[in-house]
């Protein structure tokens, strides 16, 4: 971004500065931080900011992907390419491996999802690698339970979040103190909205997987969402695969993440679409969030992202 000319920061400059401050605090105070990097847009932005926080030095911690095995190939390609460019270490926590070893049991049926299995896999990986701080790209505007979460979010030795007993968080004085076995989830993008993310992507030219931009894809309609026809998909009676011009607003498990119809092929065009959109990105595109009014709160309590 160009340097400010008057003693005033734009909202994107202020949000970036806040995120850099948070990331540097973690690097300075924790022994084994890790940054969750799925290849999705929020984690791509978070990684971009993290790299800027330590320039010209390299990122001083590894990145981790909790891999459901239900991936969009474009996203995996992007993940590997970014990791190679930056020369950072990638830790993969595999849901498939956990299923194969019997650590977790997969749901069955056409509506089966690996969403909840990610929690156990994530917590195992944190414990195994002894990570004490885990950066997540979660934003408070995404969901009601997230709106209540601290930037430094304490997790007990079971990885659990207790929303009614959170540490007060004042000024920019973050308290990351914890005992062995406990850890802190850190959300540097807490105060960003979906629109801020896209504006930042446009201004900073942050690279993203191609599926965030309009492309032709074979999809079918379920629960009011356009789902991709993947190798893991089982169609229900009456569901029909059609080809549409779509883009993704979020990228999660390929079997339950919905696409939206769009012709936006650049970040600037997506900024325009986002500014007038009337449905939240999670409401529009995430089957995993439709569990119940308190779906996210319950999953977060268990240790979800």
């Amino acid at each position: 971004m160009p340097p400010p000319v008057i003693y005033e920061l734009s909202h994107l400059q202020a949000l970036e500065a806040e995120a850099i401050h948070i990331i540097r605090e973690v690097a300075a105070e924790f022994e084994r931080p890790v940054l969750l990097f799925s290849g999705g847009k929020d984690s791509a932005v978070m990684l971009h900011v993290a790299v800027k926080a330590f320039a010209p030095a390299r990122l001083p911690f590894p990145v981790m992907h909790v891999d459901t095995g239900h991936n969009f190939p474009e996203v995996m390609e992007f993940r590997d390419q970014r990791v190679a460019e930056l020369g950072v270490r990638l830790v993969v926590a595999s849901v498939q491996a956990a299923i194969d070893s019997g650590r977790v049991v997969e749901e069955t049926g056409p509506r089966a999802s690996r969403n909840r299995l990610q929690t156990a896999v994530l917590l195992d990986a944190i414990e195994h690698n002894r990570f004490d701080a885990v950066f997540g790209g979660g934003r408070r505007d995404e969901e009601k339970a997230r709106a209540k979460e601290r930037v430094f979010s304490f997790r007990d030795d079971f990885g659990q979040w207790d929303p009614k007993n959170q540490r007060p968080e004042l000024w920019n004085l973050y308290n990351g103190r914890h005992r062995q076995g406990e850890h802190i989830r850190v959300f540097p993008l807490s105060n960003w909205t979906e629109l801020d993310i896209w504006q930042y992507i446009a201004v900073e030219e942050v690279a993203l997987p191609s599926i965030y931009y309009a492309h032709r894809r074979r999809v079918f309609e379920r629960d009011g969402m356009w789902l991709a026809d993947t190798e893991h998909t089982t169609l229900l009676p009456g569901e029909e695969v059609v080809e549409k011009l779509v883009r993704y607003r979020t990228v999660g498990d390929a079997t339950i993440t919905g696409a939206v119809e769009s012709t936006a092929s650049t970040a600037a065009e997506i900024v325009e679409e986002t500014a007038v959109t009337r449905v939240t990105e999670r409401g529009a595109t995430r089957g995993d969030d439709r569990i119940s009014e308190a779906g996210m709160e319950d999953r977060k309590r268990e240790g979800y992202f």
Partner: protein
Amino acid sequence: MELLRFATAGSVDDGKSTLIGRLLYDSKAIFEDQLEAVERTSLERGDAYTNLALLTDGLRAEREQGITIDVAYRYFATPKRKFIIADTPGHVQYTRNMVTGASTADLALVLVDARKGVLEQSRRHAFLASLLGIPHLVVCVNKMDLVDWSQERFEEIKAEFRGFAMKLECHDLSFVPISALHGDNVVTRSDNSPWYEGAPLLHHLEEVHIASDRNLIDARLPVQYVIRPMNDEHHDYRGYAGTVAGGVLKPGDEVVVLPSGFTTTIAAIDTADGPVSEAFAPMAVTVRLADDVDVSRGDMICRNRNRPHVGQDLEAMVAWLTSESSLRPGAKLAVKHTTRWGRALVKDLQYRLDVNTLHRDEAAPELTLNEIGRVQLRTTVPLFFDEYRRNRSTGSFVLVDEVTNNTVGAGMIIGPTEVS
């Protein structure tokens, strides 16, 4: 586009959540699926209106009990500004959340029920806003429809509030008569209050001047992290990364590093986007110095002739935030101030302040949850601090329990302890 952070305070019945719901809804920050979910829930609960409060009450216990438990952050933008709302519960047991939400706010919005007038709680919120150094205070006199839009009633509340606010440090105070439920004077001017000459609330939020609230005088850079790439390309690079906490830093400035006292000049101020000619709060930058001096995290870079206080004895207003313990003379706690951790001993509790009457109780033996008092501390390491009223970044600290690791106290520095 500028960013404005504001905190809202009010009780369960003041209609605070409704007001926020209204701001979000009328500024089109609410999405259809969110509104549908709220309409569905309202219908199930038998509410007569679509209960906009449900937009902000996110946790299950909150929806069940109809109260707000914790600080909730909300976001909306107009073509003029981006807004971050820290929505804090008003009821007495959660004052600690108001302190949390208000610590970074540029503006506080206090709600008063037009029928009930200025309650103890309204006074408490105004006091906390002034204690936390929030520069602008807006009082929304809500439920004006229930007092027939009486100008007399509005003026009465205004006069009473002003009378109380005179005792506080509050430089910019304004009043808006509103009905959050019906949207009068929230986003657009209401026909119900022809006598009101001020702007609707949103207009005020868009226009209030905040740029000069920051300290651009006292240059302060608490060193957060030392950047040493240690590769061939940047073999000798050594940069001191941090968030500017006050003043303006420029290459060529003569600076001193605390606590060592070494003086040198700023060789360059780097960012990932390239070097900059000036850095001011709250920019996150990396400073390189002309001389090879020893600098590490927790040190402070400032101008040679404008230094903060350096010392281990200080006086502060402390808000106690836990029910697990109390603050008593003799207590030992961890303290975090800027990027520096140390330990602090509570030397003396000078008085406990009644946040409703502002009465000072000098006989109080301790501070318990949600209590505020003036405290003398001695720290194990020297801190580099300013008065909180002069600089909210270098004038604030948190106290942490060394056993539970919980954040238990919030401190606003008055100054070095006077030697008597």
